[in-house]
């Protein structure tokens, strides 16, 4: 599904060049649940952004479903992104001015789904996430766990092939955190590929494989199942 080879990313200021990703290579197969761990500043989030086509690499190759996307421009990346990738963030990233329903509906709007179908699909995913009763509420009216469930609902409403989760439990207490992890596991079991960045060993245990990073390089890989 995803194959990166010698991926590089630099951050440049006027005089200093910082290497964020240093010839990083690995592969994630379809249906896999991979966790990426490492200390702050090791390049986890940079990697996730490149995988999510929110950012572009400075070198190396990124094959997405066998297609080289490393040189894609923003337009093409957006096109590929909206049909294939769902995002879950630590800070939920919901739009405050939109209701739960409207937040979840957003990706469907941008992929051009008709209103009637949108309603059906949003309702289905809200049912599944058990927040149907909150669909008319606004983000500020929800608890953190509920907000993250809305964010997950938004990530999956388009039936993406892959979900990228950036510390999805980082802002949640343990019981809400477990609920979210259960949700991700369920999605994975239903066939969605998941790549998750986390600091938590506990959360990492839900995955099939843990990739550990340091200074922009892969140091170890532990297969859990």
């Amino acid at each position, binding site marked *: 599904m995803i194959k990166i080879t010698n991926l590089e990313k630099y951050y440049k200021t006027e005089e200093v060049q910082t290497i964020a990703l240093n010839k990083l290579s690995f592969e994630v197969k379809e249906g896999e649940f991979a966790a990426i761990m490492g200390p702050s500043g090791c390049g986890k989030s940079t990697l996730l952004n490149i995988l*999510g086509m929110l950012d572009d690499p400075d070198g190396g190759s990124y094959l997405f479903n066998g297609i080289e996307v490393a040189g894609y421009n923003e337009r093409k990346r*957006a096109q590929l992104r909206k*049909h294939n990738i769902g995002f879950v963030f630590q800070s939920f990233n919901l*739009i405050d001015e*939109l209701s739960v329903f409207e937040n979840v509906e957003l990706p469907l709007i*941008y992929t051009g789904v008709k209103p009637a179908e949108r309603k059906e699909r949003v309702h289905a995913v809200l049912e599944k996430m058990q927040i149907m009763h909150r669909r008319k509420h606004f983000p500020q009216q929800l608890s953190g766990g509920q907000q993250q469930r809305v964010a997950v609902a938004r990530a999956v409403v388009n039936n993406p092939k892959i979900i990228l989760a950036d510390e999805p439990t980082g802002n949640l207490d343990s019981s809400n955190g477990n609920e979210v992890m259960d949700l991700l596991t369920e999605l994975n079991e239903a066939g969605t590929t998941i790549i998750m960045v986390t600091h938590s060993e506990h959360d990492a245990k839900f995955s099939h494989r843990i990739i550990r990073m340091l200074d922009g390089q892969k140091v170890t890989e532990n297969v859990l199942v």
Partner: protein
Amino acid sequence: MIKNYFKIAFRYLLKNKLYSFLNILGLALDIAAFVIIILNVSYERSYDKFDGSEQVFRIYMDYKEGGNFVPGDAQTYNLTGPTLKKEFPEIIEQVRLYRLEKVTFVNGEKVIQQPNGSLADESYFRIFDNPLISGNLKDFEKPNTLILTSTLAEKLFGKDQAVGKNLSIFDGSSTPMEVVGVIKDIPQNTHFKTNYLISYSTINTWNRMGSNGKPNWNRNNFFTYVKVASNTDIASLQKKITGSDFEKNPHERHNIEAISDIHLHSNKPYEAEANGSNSRVSFLSAIAFIILILSWLNYVNLATAKSLERSKEVGIRKVAGAQRSQLVFQSLGESLLLNLFALLLAIGLVYLMLPLFNRFVGKELFLGLSNLTIILPFLGFILLGTLLSGLYPAMVISGFMPIRALKGKVIASRSGINIRKGLIGLQFFATAVLIIGTLVVSQQIQFLRAQPLGVNLDQIVALNGEILEKQDDSLMGEKASVLESELLQLPFVDGVTQAKTYPGDGYDNLSSTVGITFPDGIERERQLFYLYGAKSNYFDVMNLNFIAGKGYAPVLAGIRNFDIVLNETFARIMGFTDPSEIIGKTVKFWGESFRVSGVIADYHHFGLKNKIEPLIIGNLYWAYGGSMDNVLVKMKAIGLSSIDKNLVQIKQKWKDVFPQSTFNYTFLDKKFEAQYLEDTKFGVAFQLFTGLAIFIAGLGLFGLTSYTILQRKKEIGIRRVSGASVLQIFTLLNKDFLKLVGFSFILAVPIAWYVMEKWLQEFAYQTKLSWWIFILAGTAAFAVAVISVSFQAIKAAIANPVKSLRTE
């Protein structure tokens, strides 16, 4: 998708109430101001445009002044029209109009005084688009026939058919008239307001007309309008007309001007009414556009500043698959929505403010379906501006990198900041120009008011009216003297006199004469001067100052008196720098010899827009047939409260002496002041619009500050933690903006100087552009800047630095 855009735009507007309110209100006020100014300007430009008006021209007189011809008189001779028509085949019609300032109509018990009428050739109806709605034009060739507007017809005859009815006109004696036609009311946007027309042939049957009917090249008391063939080359016709000399007088010539140019471009002596001013109209249009453009610049600034707060939303949308074009459309949609609200509010404001504005400018402007065409092109302009002003913030907001946007780490580019600084600079530049302009205009008006007029008009009231009984001249004079002594007995009356006209009365009752023999015995054929009659005590009552000699002695009615008083200017023109030397000398005009008995210091008979003209005042009873027209009553300095009561007593005295008469009164100082009315109104409008511009500029700076402070939040936090005081932070934030304002101000000064210098040249008496105006304007601009910046700078400076650092 569109629904989603609007939904979020709505909620966003509701959530940010202050921002939305400021933005919408600002835009609405500006659009409303723009629309009102445009309505006003297009009304001013709509004068005398009727079906066929492009073929209609007015003939006027040029007089030679120092070797050059200058426009000298709006009126021409009674031979002008017929002669030009005969000589120049391009001229297919001509009409002569002898204007009547005021006529008293008597229909049985009904007595109605009406202004704005004329004696007119029946060709009037082939030139002007005011057709008869009833009656027969053929009858209008007969003398003593009359055509009324429908309003006047109804006033005189009620709902009855007016055509065929008889009435009389009273002016010392009664003249019968037959109504032969009714026309629709003539729209107000003409320089030649008309309520009634009297047939031209009446000129020979009506006493009041004297010898005016005799064809001659001596008395230019007639307005002449001509209609030219449709394909006429006007430039060559003008050449022919200015080159002709039918009156055999090398010191004057006839000239021609388009009728639609008169209102804004003509300001000759003896106009039918005080015309408008093209420079005022241009000034106002310029201000209208400046205001609108300022408000858009402002919108760009506020919206861009505000967009930073929405970077997270943009990030989420991008992550959810939005393309840049979609975000641009969303942003444009929002500005369209905001502008739509503003436009709706503006229309409401226009309807609300128009009646006030109308009362203020004395017009009947309206906004409706019928004049939508005036506004429509501008509506396109407004929409285009909206689109353009929405585009910049849209491009900025949609250009955020999604990852940075999500983290709220959007940093404005240097060039972006510079663009916004440039916009603010431009706003302050325009504001500074407007502030300077306002100050100059009000200083000039103050200056005019403060000028010594050379005459004291306080507490003087002019009485006049139409005496509706047949009187002979000597009896009238006697009665007027009775009225004088009766009025003097009132305890609050200080003095009473009689005069044909008075300062501030304009040209209405003033005679102008060309040709006079100076004391050196040489006749100056082309010397123009003005004269009017007044009783001997006029100089006392008006507080006119003799610099040499004295006034003339009172004379018994019926005896001709040839003593006259000159003003200083005329004495100087006659070559007497020492005015005392001219006393007792003789001048000749009107075929008579006059003795100079005194010279008065110059006073302003016209407003201060005009320079002082050579003037003669004499006891010209014999020339006016017994009546001086105005009884001037000087009242003792008293409280305003008693003025009404005093007027009642004065009116009673008038009615006692002239039981069958109308009665009018005018306060001289008010009437004089009225000459500056247009300029005063212009000044007020200028102030209003400048206030608006200042408000917008302040708003813009407010927006930019909030933007910059957001950008520098971390810097402020670190500086505070490192020990910077609140004052130091405050100064830091203000410094940049003040530099900007200072720079714009320096640019504004020479431009404002140039423009206002030009405006001042319209006045014969001008104030100096003093340095303090510029200092004051600069201070005002800085004050506005400091206030708009400080509101947020203080907030940022005293905010807890820990908070701003934590969000990083």
